[in-house]
């Protein structure tokens, strides 16, 4: 007994010694044991901690993979690229357990996107991006972009056919930028084609540059979250009702309550994760694409190339943006501008923008022609005179290819605008009306359809459906200020509801 008491005393003394020099107890209390989170968290609130878990999995497995991986595009004695061989031969066959470490990493990439997409969907369901949580949402967008970067850079490393051609397509996206495009894509590749130089710099980005940014953003995401406190399925602020000690009445400490809930979620997740790693590591060609088991060949594009599933919705939108789609896109931009113009009677600046944006878009899409269907006006009036400045034909506007790239990047970034697009008086889907609910369902369906067609080879039907879904995707964001205001909402309770 005495002995035990001495040990606890010593431990207390040691903690006090540390606390005098570093705020250990303070940090633990303020962020864990005395961080009060709403008591009505549900299933959807598991994905934040799961995302953190997957991040740790990716970092740990990544460290072990780097021990055997060689970023080298030159051919070995057997005539196979060294990088490809170091993955498919060394790691997959020769290193003890290497196969499973690699599968954890490749499955982890897909798991990361599943978890993050669900985490974002949770935010959209319960209005977690609304005031005062805009910065949490924006840091989250930064994390999402970093993840996309990680996935893209990492996918080149095995130096298979899909690695090579995927990088080729995405880097060439930058060549669509007017004037500087050609040099820009050369600058990114460090060569005139995707080559050893590209592989090495992508390796550097994948293993150190982006992970550092990612960790910084995750930290900022959590600091911002703990500053304002978590949202909840009711979308009401628990800080409005506190007890005598200043503790929210509807809050429970993160440790032990939410930690236990998260441990339960983590266990279920790991069971599924392990099942995939052991029994379906390629995920039916969705997690690891079959064409990537062939080494990169710069002379031959595989008959069907598609990105990994998590990029396919955006890839579909890229493909859907052809010159015959631009008139519809312009009509959409014009509609948003008219609606904004009507609502901004008091603000000259906004009204000016509402005129300028459609005009600029019209020129950018069609130049001086009638919706791109006719020859430019200048060709009729002044035949033979060229209006080309720095490689851009002013009479014809910019290529559909460039707008495809803008579409792909822009549609990702639209999420960042949500805090300012959503004008609903309530946060949570529970108290929103049929209009917003319908819009959300349409958005999810359109997103899934876009994702499906992105995995398929180009086809006329797929193209038209992708174009329709692209408009629906854009409408969800573009029309939100109006339908979220028109929506008939239900009264929000003063305190949390739970069973």
């Amino acid at each position: 007994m005495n002995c035990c008491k001495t040990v606890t005393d010593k431990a207390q003394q040691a903690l006090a010694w540390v606390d005098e020099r570093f705020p250990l107890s303070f940090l633990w209390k303020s962020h864990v044991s005395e961080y009060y989170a709403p008591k009505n968290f549900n299933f959807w609130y598991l994905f934040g901690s799961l995302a953190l878990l997957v991040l740790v999995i990716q970092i740990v497995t990544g460290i072990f993979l780097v021990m055997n991986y060689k970023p080298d595009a030159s051919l070995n004695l057997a005539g196979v690229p060294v990088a490809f061989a170091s993955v498919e031969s060394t790691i997959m066959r020769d290193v003890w357990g290497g196969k499973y470490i690699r599968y954890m990493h490749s499955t982890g990439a897909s798991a990361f996107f599943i978890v993050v997409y669900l985490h974002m969907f949770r935010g959209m369901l319960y209005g977690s991006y609304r005031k005062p949580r805009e910065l949490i949402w924006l840091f989250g967008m930064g994390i999402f972009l970093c993840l996309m970067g990680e996935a893209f850079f990492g996918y080149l490393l095995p130096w298979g056919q899909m690695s090579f051609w995927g990088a080729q397509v995405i880097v060439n996206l930058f060549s669509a930028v007017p004037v500087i495009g050609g040099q820009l894509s050369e600058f990114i590749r460090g060569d005139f084609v995707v080559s050893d130089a590209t592989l090495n710099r992508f390796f550097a980005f994948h293993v150190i540059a982006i992970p550092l940014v990612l960790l910084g953003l995750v930290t900022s995401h959590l600091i911002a979250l703990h500053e304002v406190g978590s949202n909840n399925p009711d979308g009401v602020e628990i800080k409005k009702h506190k007890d005598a000690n200043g503790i929210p009445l509807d809050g429970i400490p993160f440790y032990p309550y939410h930690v236990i809930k998260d441990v339960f979620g983590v266990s279920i997740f790991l069971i599924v994760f392990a099942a995939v790693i052991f029994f379906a590591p390629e995920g039916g060609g969705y997690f690891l694409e079959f064409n990537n088991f062939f080494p990169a060949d710069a002379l031959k594009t595989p008959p069907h190339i598609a990105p990994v599933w998590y990029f396919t919705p955006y890839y579909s939108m890229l493909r859907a943006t052809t010159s015959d789609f631009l008139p519809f896109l312009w009509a959409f931009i014009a509609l948003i501008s008219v609606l904004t113009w009507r609502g901004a009677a008091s603000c000259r600046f906004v009204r000016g923008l509402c005129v300028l944006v459609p005009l600029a878009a019209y020129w950018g899409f069609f130049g001086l022609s009638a919706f791109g269907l006719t020859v430019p006006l200048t060709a009729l009036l002044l035949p033979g005179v060229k209006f080309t400045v720095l490689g851009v034909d002013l009479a014809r506007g910019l290529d559909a290819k460039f707008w495809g790239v803008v579409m792909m990047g822009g549609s990702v970034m639209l999420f960042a605008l949500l805090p300012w697009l959503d004008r609903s008086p309530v946060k949570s889907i529970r108290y929103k009306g049929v209009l917003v609910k319908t819009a959300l369902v349409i958005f999810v369906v359109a997103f899934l359809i876009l994702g499906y067609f992105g995995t398929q080879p180009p086809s006329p039907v797929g193209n038209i459906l992708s174009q329709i879904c692209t408009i629906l995707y854009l409408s969800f964001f573009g029309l939100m200020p109006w339908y979220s205001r028109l929506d008939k909402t239900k009264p929000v309770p003063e305190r949390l509801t739970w069973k």
Partner: protein
Amino acid sequence: MSDNKENASNGESCCACSLDPERRALLAATAGVGAIVGLGVAAPFVGSFLPSERAKAAGAPVEYDLSKLAPGQMDTIEWQGKPVWIVRRTPEMVAALKKNDANLVDPNSERSEQPEYAKGTARAIKDEYFVCLGVCTHLGCSPNPKFLLGAESGMGEDWNGGFLCPCHGSRFDLAGRVFKSMPAPVNLVIPPHSYLSDTRLLIGKDSKES
């Protein structure tokens, strides 16, 4: 002496409002110079992203022996790390090119990239041999040959032979000219090339340059 005193008292009054113009100026100058040095130091990091000297040097012309190519056949060789196609077009293939003109974005290749001697409908020095960079002008995939005609090709009834890009479905005819409403904005690029003899083709170099 009196000047010194005045300066000293000025200095004091500045200290009171926590502003010392001389030190401010020194700090600003130091920071300014530091920023310039910083920019200079950043230059190599930006520069290191440009293609290296070795990458620039690896672009020598390639020779190709045409005698091994049968009519209607296509071969692919590597030049500057990119695929270059050599297609031996049959007279029927060349004749069919005109039929596509109405459906093309740039039938006379005025907005597309090719040497002066490879303009026009056939886009070749000799109509029989079509030399083309096998890199789609959309996003750089390598299109696949679809030389069968009509419905047999799986490309539609009025298909006169050409190429299909597997990535985003751009279609090109047998002179590398892109069809309307395709993701690719312009025709395929024709690399500089010349004939050393009737059967020896040099890719990557004009006859003028030699």
